[in-house]
């Protein structure tokens, strides 16, 4: 079989996979999945030329290929480096990689406002995930963070540049999905910003997709802003007949109410291919205007596998341990961090707290 011979063997953190030539290290690692996969903030497999900018996916190449087993001197961006046959890659097994990755996370968070409590992206934010996994608890940055004014990009999208990490995904989306791009990156260095130069509205049927590709809360859906937290809403797969797009979406519902419509996403947070085979970008009409359950044919709840808090309560593949705590601790009873009393030593020790109906109240002690 000549086709099978073409596959390249690549070893990532001691796990070997066979991939097509031309696959990037990141995509090879995604075939393995789990912790081995480097995080990616700017790479988006559905967008051409994306990637290479955020540097979170840096990996160490310990051996270039079977033919040329020399290691690469620098860490490489796994999203833009293609595999060679016999390549040996170190991701989480390399100290250098973990160190660099922690550095990149620190850099990304340096000017990020960390306003997660009021950010609509919280709960499905890639930067949140990244900082939970690789970040430190504090910052060493002692200066004012840079801020920008909020901009309305038309009636549906708000740009909150302060949160932006300049992944360029929205620029590529507008380039590759719409006929004419009207927003881009202005200025350079740490004052670079996504902007339309003169406040212009982004006016295109597919421009709403920039919200889906944004890894942080820089581009948010104005029809959803401050309406709900994503973890209170339940994702449901649905579709409708749409003349402009594939019409296959995810509804984010609470009860019968549709709070938000997004494209369907895979386990890497990227928009899935639709049943017609092409990438499932959705049009503005589906996204912003069809906010009632009756507009949609509901298929069933979405399987949420990766994203942190959205999957709360949906424990996938969780095995409940059979052992009790004393079993694990060799017979000793667990030492509780909080000493829970059943009598109050401060008030009236003669009253047993557990006998009180409901929470204790001062009236209970006056009796």
């Amino acid at each position, binding site marked *: 079989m000549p086709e099978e011979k073409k596959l390249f063997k690549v070893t990532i953190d001691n796990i070997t996979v066979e991939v097509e030539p031309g696959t990037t290290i990141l995509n090879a690692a995604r075939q393995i999945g789990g912790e081995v996969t480097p995080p990616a903030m700017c790479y988006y497999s559905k967008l051409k030329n994306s*990637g*290479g*900018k*955020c*540097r*979170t996916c*840096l990996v160490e190449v310990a051996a270039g290929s079977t033919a040329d087993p020399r290691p690469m001197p*620098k*860490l490489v*961006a796994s999203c*833009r480096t293609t595999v060679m046959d016999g390549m040996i890659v170190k991701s989480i097994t390399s100290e250098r990689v973990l*160190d*660099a990755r922690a*550095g*990149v996370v*620190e*850099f*990304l968070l*340096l*000017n990020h406002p960390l306003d997660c409590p009021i950010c609509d992206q919280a709960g499905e934010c890639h930067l949140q995930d990244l900082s939970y996994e690789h970040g430190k608890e504090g910052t*060493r*940055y002692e*200066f004012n963070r840079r801020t920008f004014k909020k901009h309305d990009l038309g009636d549906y999208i708000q740009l909150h540049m302060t949160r932006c*990490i*300049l992944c*360029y995904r929205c620029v590529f989306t507008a380039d590759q999905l719409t006929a004419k791009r009207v927003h*881009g*990156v202005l*200025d*350079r*260095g*740490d*004052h*670079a910003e996504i902007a339309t130069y003169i406040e212009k509205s982004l006016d295109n049927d597919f421009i709403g997709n920039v919200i889906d590709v944004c890894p942080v809360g820089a581009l948010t859906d104005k029809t959803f802003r401050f309406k709900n937290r994503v973890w209170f809403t339940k994702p449901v797969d649905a579709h409708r007949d749409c003349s402009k797009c594939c019409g296959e979406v995810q509804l984010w519902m609470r009860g019968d109410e549709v709070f938000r419509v997004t494209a369907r996403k895979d386990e890497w947070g990227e928009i899935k291919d639709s049943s017609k085979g092409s990438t499932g970008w959705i049009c503005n009409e589906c996204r912003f205007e069809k906010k009632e359950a009756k507009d949609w044919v509901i298929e069933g709840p979405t399987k949420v596998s990766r994203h942190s808090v959205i999957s709360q309560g949906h424990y996938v593949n969780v095995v409940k341990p059979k052992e009790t705590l004393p079993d694990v601790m060799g017979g000793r009873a667990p030492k509780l961090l909080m000493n829970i009393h059943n009598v109050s030593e401060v008030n009236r020790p003669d009253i047993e707290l557990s006998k009180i109906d409901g929470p204790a109240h001062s009236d209970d002690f006056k009796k």
Partner: protein
Amino acid sequence: MGVKLLLEKAQVEGIRSYEVYRREGGYRAAEKALKTMAPDAVTEEVKKSGLRGRGGAGFPAGMKWSFLAKPEGIPRHLVCNADESEPGTFKDRYLMEFLPHLLIEGLLISSYALGSNATYIYIRGEYAWIPDILEQAIGEAKANGWLGKNILGTGFDCEIYVQRGGGAYICGEETALIESLEGKRGNPRIKPPFPAVKGVWDRPTVVNNVETLAAVVPIINMGGDEYAKIGVGRSTGTKLISACGNINKPGVFEIDMTISVEEFIYSDEYCGGIKNGKRLKACIPGGSSVPILPANLLLKTAKGETRYMNYESLSDGGFATGSMMGSGGFIVLDEDQCVVKNTYTLARFYRHESCGQCSPCREGTGWMEKILKNIDSGKGKMSDIDLLWDIQRKIEGNTICPLGDAAAWPVAAAIRHFRDEFEWHVKNPQECVTRNYGLAHYADPLEVVG
């Protein structure tokens, strides 16, 4: 008196004009190359000459040319990188301003060797008056049959276009230059693919520095082997050094890479010694992004050998005790200069010039600048010095293009060699704004700190 190949005729009256340049032996090399040599033979001569890229990295030019992909039916391009923006470097400016025809001739020969029918000079925006000089020279060359269609009846066509940049340091990085030349935002591309395969408009492209291309002229005139005899080891030929700072004779000098650093600084033929009879404290030998060296490590290597002005000797000892030849921007600091302030100035430059594409450089350069500003103005903390070290370590090597490294190296070297000066700034917050740290042991050339 050292050998002069490039600046030999720089002082001739009216050398800017075609007539005088031709009378002084100009375009002889172009005639020789186009009439008697095959394109590959020209590349072969350049390879033999051992000419190394004069833009900063020092990559062998002939090797770079031979990497150029030559697919059938796709045009190839030569781009001359005249976006000389490295602080302290002004050699290309001198060359273009006074000897425009030398560059045009070099471009013509190189275009012939590489098969480029459309050759571009990408010049930095701040050199506002030089494009006019170059365009006039191109016009004269064209009028005399050195450019255009069927040059010298060889059937080779070549046009040279001058493209002005918008004034961005980052556009000196070859892929950012290509993006900018295409009319896009000057962001460096992610390599691979390299420009030799996919450059301007996805066509194979060679990007070379002004001085490198000008040096092709003497190589063809005297032959690659002869050229290789000048200089020492792998540092062949002559190099233009733009010397500035606290010296008596700042300016552009042509050296043949066999003289010692000490001779270069103190000889009357070159820098003419330190200004006002002061003592040498430190020097950045190759443009602002290369590591700064204290006087003792500058004049002698860590092994106690004399340091020479060439690629190998300047980088002897690696970054721990050495530096780099870089682009030849030789910045001399005397005993009155403050290394912390100097480093802060450089950090400010790199922060301003970072393109903002990749996160370590975008965020890290600004962070380093703010910390250095604090230390410089007496608001620093002891922990800031270690923090700076950690930041530069996390930028270096983790960015798309070398700007990240260029921003990290000066900070790293300043802390490595002048840590006590940083500490003094922290310990004496009042004093550091009113007076300088002084010399300590840096200026003593006899004492080498290992």
